[in-house]
């Protein structure tokens, strides 16, 4: 047994949190900040090392660790393949940036905030690594606690309402998944994902089980019509909270669709494709239209997230290599770009204490650097070639065209709407006359903001021009997943004939 690198990734942030909790320096916030920054950077480097030693040509799970946890029922089992490693790296990449960004935004209880973020990181990495359904559920649900506190304690005016809505919506979706997980245990005798891939689940149970998993993932994605918690949560959460929520939490569901819905219930997945496609299309078109009408910058970006995740779910259920790889790429890309956009909103919110679009206008003359950075991310969000956003959307549409021409055509309209609301947002905020005197007093980006945003911009452009490192990491695993999917489907169709 080698060094348990995945468990270290999972446990390291929590150890950092414990250090901060018991640190003597209750008044000295800097110590807490440095500890958390150090821990999260160490985790990032560890995950890069993981990527380095990760073998891209093997499609199966690597670095698998297994320990007996609850005799005979549940084993603690973690491992990664080409799909999950990218999400792990995304998590470890975004968290340090969040921690740097809290510099000035969080004034009270900074220590508690950092503890919450670090524990959140443990849970998020755990979700992407776990290879046992129960362990997955544990991490998936446990993440609710820190996020509830982040929104509730450090959020805006309507924080209580948003925190409750976030928590209860997600919990309601997840409890049905718990029923499904336990049912799978009694049907097959195991909750081990690798074993379940091989054993397969009886076709007559698949539809109900699929729906139970769907109820949880649909809320988390979020898909229309259960997306309403997201704008509230985003608007009220502090900047770092919004970033974590948009960049990583939403990806848990997309990851869950790929890993569990496709992997465990191929027949049901095939059966429910029309449902997913129609919900995704509604999400893409309807929420894009809503985004056009928003007065609040954060809300606009939140609705755009729903639309982007609509593309992701559509791509996943095309069951084509292009579609799934595109979805994974789109999730990573959205993770980077939406994080950056929320940080950008945070920057001006901190200075003006308003997110209303009409209060801004003409900030290009006072904040030139900010305007350039925002431009990069606006273009990224609308999918301009040369940014990560383009490659994801392009691959997804390519996959969809193969499967269903109509759906792809309608979804392409969504791309145009996306360009419309993002560019209009940019025009209203950055260009035009300065109508609000406050805008004249704005200061341009300071050093730490510059660092965070330029790192994100570089990554976004880099992978936009050269997506190969990401795509080649995932391709073997995705193809393996599709093979498995088709094989199961063939067995079933052969059986019914």
């Amino acid at each position, binding site marked *: 047994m080698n060094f348990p690198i995945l468990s270290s990734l999972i446990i390291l942030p929590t150890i950092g949190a414990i250090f901060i909790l018991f640190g003597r320096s209750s008044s000295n916030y800097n110590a807490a900040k440095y500890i958390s920054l150090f821990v999260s950077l160490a985790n990032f480097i560890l995950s890069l090392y993981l990527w380095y030693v990760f073998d891209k040509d093997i499609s199966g799970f690597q670095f698998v660790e297994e320990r007996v946890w609850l005799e005979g029922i549940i084993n603690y089992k973690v491992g990664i393949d080409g799909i999950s490693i990218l999400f792990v790296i995304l998590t470890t990449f975004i968290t340090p940036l969040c921690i740097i960004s809290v510099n000035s935004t969080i004034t009270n209880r900074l220590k508690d905030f950092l503890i919450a973020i670090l524990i959140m990181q443990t849970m998020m990495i755990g979700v992407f690594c776990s290879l046992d359904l129960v362990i997955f559920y544990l991490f998936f649900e446990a993440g609710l606690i820190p996020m509830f506190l982040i929104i509730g304690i450090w959020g805006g005016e309507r924080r209580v309402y948003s925190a409750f809505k976030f928590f209860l919506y997600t919990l309601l979706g997840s409890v049905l998944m718990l029923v499904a997980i336990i049912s799978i245990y*009694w049907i097959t005798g195991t909750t081990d994902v690798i074993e379940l891939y091989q054993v397969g689940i009886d076709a007559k149970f698949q539809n109900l089980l699929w729906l139970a998993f769907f109820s949880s993932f649909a809320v988390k994605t979020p898909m229309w019509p259960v997306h309403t918690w997201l704008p509230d949560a985003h608007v009220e959460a502090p900047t770092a909270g919004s970033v974590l929520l948009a960049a990583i939490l939403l990806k848990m569901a997309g990851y869950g669709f790929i890993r569990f819905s496709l992997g465990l219930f191929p027949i049901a997945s095939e059966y429910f494709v029309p449902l997913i496609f129609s919900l995704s299309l509604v999400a893409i078109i309807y929420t894009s239209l809503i985004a056009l009408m928003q007065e609040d910058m954060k809300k606009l970006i939140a609705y755009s997230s729903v639309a982007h995740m609509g593309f992701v779910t559509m791509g996943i259920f095309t069951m084509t290599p292009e579609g799934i790889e595109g979805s994974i790429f789109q999730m990573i890309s959205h993770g980077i770009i939406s994080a950056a956009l929320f940080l950008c909103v945070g920057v001006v919110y901190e200075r003006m204490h308003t997110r209303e679009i009409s209060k801004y206008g003409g900030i290009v003359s006072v904040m030139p650097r900010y305007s350039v950075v925002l431009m990069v991310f606006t273009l990224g969000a609308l999918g301009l070639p040369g940014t990560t956003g383009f490659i994801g959307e392009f691959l997804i549409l390519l996959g969809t065209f193969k499967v269903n021409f109509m759906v792809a055509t309608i979804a392409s309209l969504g791309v145009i709407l996306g360009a419309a609301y993002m560019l209009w947002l940019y025009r209203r905020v950055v260009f035009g006359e300065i109508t609000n005197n406050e805008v004249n007093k704005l200061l341009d980006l300071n050093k730490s903001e510059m660092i965070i945003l330029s790192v994100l911009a570089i990554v976004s452009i880099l992978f936009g021009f050269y997506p190969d490192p990401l795509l080649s990491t995932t391709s073997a695993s995705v193809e393996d997943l599709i093979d498995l999917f088709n094989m199961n489907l063939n067995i079933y169709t052969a059986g019914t004939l």
Partner: protein
Amino acid sequence: MNLDLIFPEIFLSLAIMFLLMVGVFKKKSERLVYNLSTTTLIILLALVINLFSINEILIFNQSYKIDTLSTFMKSITIISAIFVMISSFTYIKTLDILKIEYPILILSAILGMMVMISSNDLIVFYLGLELQSLALYVLASFNRDNILSSESGLKYFVLSALSSGLLLYGCSLIYGFSGSTNFTFISSLTSNIENGVIFGLVFIIVGLAFKISAVPFHMWAPDVYQGSPTSVTLFFAALPKVAALTVFIRFLYIPFVNLIDNWQTIIVFISISSMIFGAVAAIGQSNLKRLIAYSSIGHMGYALAGLASGTNQGVQSSVTYISIYLVMTLAFFSCLFMMRKKNIFYEKIEDLSGLSSNHPILSICLLIVLFSLAGIPPLAGFFAKFYIFMAVIEQSMYFLAIVGLLSTVVAAFYYLRLIKIIYFDKPKESFEKDHRIGLKVTLAISTGILLLYFIYPGFLNDLVSRIVLI
């Protein structure tokens, strides 16, 4: 002779009489008696654990049973009683109810519970139940200058007497139609069971449901919980439920296991209605003790859901559930005991407002307890529910599982409301911060268990998996 097997009970009875003498003949001996009682419990625990190696022995003409279930349940009863004693001392002293009778009544109630837990005969069971109940009536009204306390004592007495009457009626029906009061004998009646026995069974289920405050026999719980002194409420919320649940298990799984088709529907109904009612009714409460009363009604619903499955796994999950429930109750009440300001104990929900800014550690403890009560992983409360639903779904009782899990979402709402008040609201004047070491230790141990349970869940599981009834 089999006396060594009931040595714990004999020891406890002698200790009670001895302590009564001490109290009578020695002036101002309240403190001494209190401490001696705690010591008695610790010794008693050692004596009971000593019996853990015994798998199953019937003594006294098969009317008294020592098995793994009884030893485990007695152990957790005594352990929680010890923590109840050491955590509530300041409270009792401040309320000026530190009299010699108080610890002695608690010991008598525990003696009654031990007899109940081990009973293998309807008469022995009834004796234990009455010994326990009589002690509890007095304890409920122990703060006799307080009108609420007197009211709660009276209410508990009247309603409990009614339920005891129903129980006794059920017992006599069973005796009349089966010819014996012995559980083992009744279980041997396999063929042509008469309707009278089934009627008796229903009456006994009703009586027991009253004792563990399951819907629709829960009406006494909120008033009694609120009116009694908090230390007694803690005792009510924790210990009698263990004893009554044990009798429930024994009763349904030994004499009437063949009648599972008859009692399963009743238990499922009681369980579902308790879960839903406990979740919904707690939302509007403003008093913490009342709230925890409704919450405990809900929790009993989950414990019964395990029983309803009719399997060994179901029994084990119920036993696990009640053990973790005890820890959560202890932790919650320890927090309540800490809400003290100038010798007044606060118990309103709004008194918690903004607690986190003045009492960070107490708030984190409450946070852990509340999330655990709500059943959010990775805290112990989640595992308790997880085992229950494992057992329920094994029997394909999906309706019960889904209703149960949906009511956890409703219940999560009021736990979250408390967390909101503690963490998101404006702070009030802070409470006193000096507490006796016993209270601090209780809180630290109980929240520690809740938080770290997930690291090694096998510990409790190994113990509980030795309980095999069928």
